[in-house]
């Protein structure tokens, strides 16, 4: 595909709701999701009977030994559609790593094709009891035989190596990472629903935290939580009759691995190479460029992802993101900055897999960001890493 997105500004987000973000709760995840879904439907000025499309991704992203139970520890669209008691015409789950942008794309396609009129997009994250990632396995068959026996296991070692390569190559260090983690936590502390509400992080506390996989510490990673976010989407025509200011989808871009590697071996070069194509498709499909964007909510499950996305999307030259951040380029208290973590991101909310990014874009563009409201016409959000993820441009001024 090249050129303007066929569904350019034809699909809109018309309502939302999210749960509080808590570390753990005895409440089954499905109950949190149902309550949040009903609130989002009401927010959009609709009734559950009108929701005829459901899309989501349900993966529980832990490397520990946790069994996924639908309605308890994960919530699929099938489960939600059935338990909400509506009249589903189309239900689809996204299978892949770029979960939120992938399932948002399913929602867009569902509406653009006419398979449904009102789509409920949700993401529900659970924090299982016990260790999240620790794994007691003593043998590895299949794909992981190529990585785990060397001690290379879970997402963090590879991301730490990507982070180190970035730092070594471009002169960043833990002082640089402190700039963005402190910014994320500053913004998260201002959100009443965040796990980190009223708990900002000082630079000194960040620097005092020992690395677990050098150069990254726990504070460079989002904390596992339970939380649910729901968005209601419909066509631009139907959106006109609904109470909230519509936020239109202008374009989208996705990236995929370029090289066959051992499991979870993500590399800096691959992220940047795949990111070039992703960014090209994103800007072509939206008819906009980085200079048109008022806020960029970039994914930050791991702190170095912020650098990678800022560079891939063209907000600063390659290798310069750590200086861009240091110099206030994303500081939410500077009106002309990108405010890239103004919604707290994952580090300032908890492990919500892109929900804070999409939520902040929606709130800013719909004029519903309250005290955090910044003048915003065009926004971009990104999810995962560029070689496995996606980015979406949204606007409140469809041309």
């Amino acid at each position, binding site marked *: 595909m090249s050129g303007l997105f066929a569904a350019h500004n034809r699909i809109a987000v018309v309502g939302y709701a999210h749960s509080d973000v808590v570390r753990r709760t005895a409440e089954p995840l499905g109950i949190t999701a149902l309550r949040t879904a009903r609130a989002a439907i009401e927010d959009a000025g609709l009734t559950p009977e009108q929701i005829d499309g459901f899309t989501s991704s349900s993966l529980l992203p832990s490397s520990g030994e946790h069994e996924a139970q639908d309605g308890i520890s994960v919530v699929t669209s099938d489960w939600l559609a059935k338990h909400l008691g509506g009249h589903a015409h189309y239900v689809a789950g996204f299978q892949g790593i770029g979960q939120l942008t992938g399932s948002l794309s399913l929602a867009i396609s569902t509406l653009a094709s006419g398979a449904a009129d009102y789509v409920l997009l949700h993401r529900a994250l659970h924090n299982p009891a016990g260790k999240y990632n620790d794994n007691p396995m003593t043998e590895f068959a299949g794909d992981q035989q190529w990585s785990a026996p060397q001690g290379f296991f879970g997402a963090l070692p590879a991301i730490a190596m990507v982070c180190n390569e970035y730092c070594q190559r471009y002169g960043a260090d833990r002082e640089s990472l402190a700039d963005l983690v402190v910014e994320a936590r500053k913004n998260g502390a201002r959100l009443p629903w965040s796990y980190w509400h009223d708990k900002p992080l000082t630079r000194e506390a960040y620097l005092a935290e020992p690395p677990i996989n050098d150069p990254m510490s726990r504070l460079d990673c989002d904390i596992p939580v339970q939380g649910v976010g729901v968005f209601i989407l419909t066509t631009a025509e139907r959106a006109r009759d609904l109470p909230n200011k519509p936020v239109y989808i202008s374009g989208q871009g996705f990236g995929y691995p370029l090289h066959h590697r*051992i499991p979870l071996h993500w590399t800096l070069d691959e992220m940047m190479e795949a990111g070039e194509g992703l960014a090209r498709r994103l800007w072509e499909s939206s008819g906009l460029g980085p200079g048109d964007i008022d806020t960029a909510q970039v994914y930050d499950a791991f702190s170095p992802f912020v650098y990678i996305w800022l560079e891939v999307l063209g907000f600063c030259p390659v290798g310069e993101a750590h200086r861009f951040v240091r110099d206030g380029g994303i500081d939410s208290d500077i009106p002309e900055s990108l405010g890239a973590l103004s919604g707290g991101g994952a580090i300032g909310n908890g492990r919500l897999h892109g929900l804070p990014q999409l939520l902040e874009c929606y709130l800013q563009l719909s004029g519903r960001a309250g005290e955090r409201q910044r003048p915003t016409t065009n926004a971009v959000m990104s999810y995962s890493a560029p070689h496995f993820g996606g980015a979406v441009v949204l606007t409140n001024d469809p041309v």
Partner: protein
Amino acid sequence: MTNRPLPVPDETSAPYWAACAEHVLKLPRCSSCGEFTLPPDVTCPHCQSPEPDFTFEPVSGRGKVRTWTVIRHSFLSGFEVPFLLVDVELDDQPHIRMVGRLVDGPETPLRIGDRVAVAFEDLSSDIAVPAFTLAGAS
């Protein structure tokens, strides 16, 4: 000998692990295009042949350090921390990367581009896993 997790060789990997046990690094090579691949896949990632008939052939096992991390908390049991993992780009073919422990120890000073050579850690009487050791200029 160790409590570290062991690989379970299968029909796609048995020659690799058999060679490792002899402290020889053999990588799967596509019979159609001759390119090395790690790990083997059901097709060849280079030429997309659905019948790659991978053969396992010795490689130099030498390369350069692309990046590294010191693991101070391991998500897997059986590993003594800290240990150092290196991401190595092998000389044998562009884009072939391996991740292994640096047997020189967790405090080893490293720079991007440092030369390393494959080494092996014996985990049981018939299983050894690849690792790396500093090789100096070469």
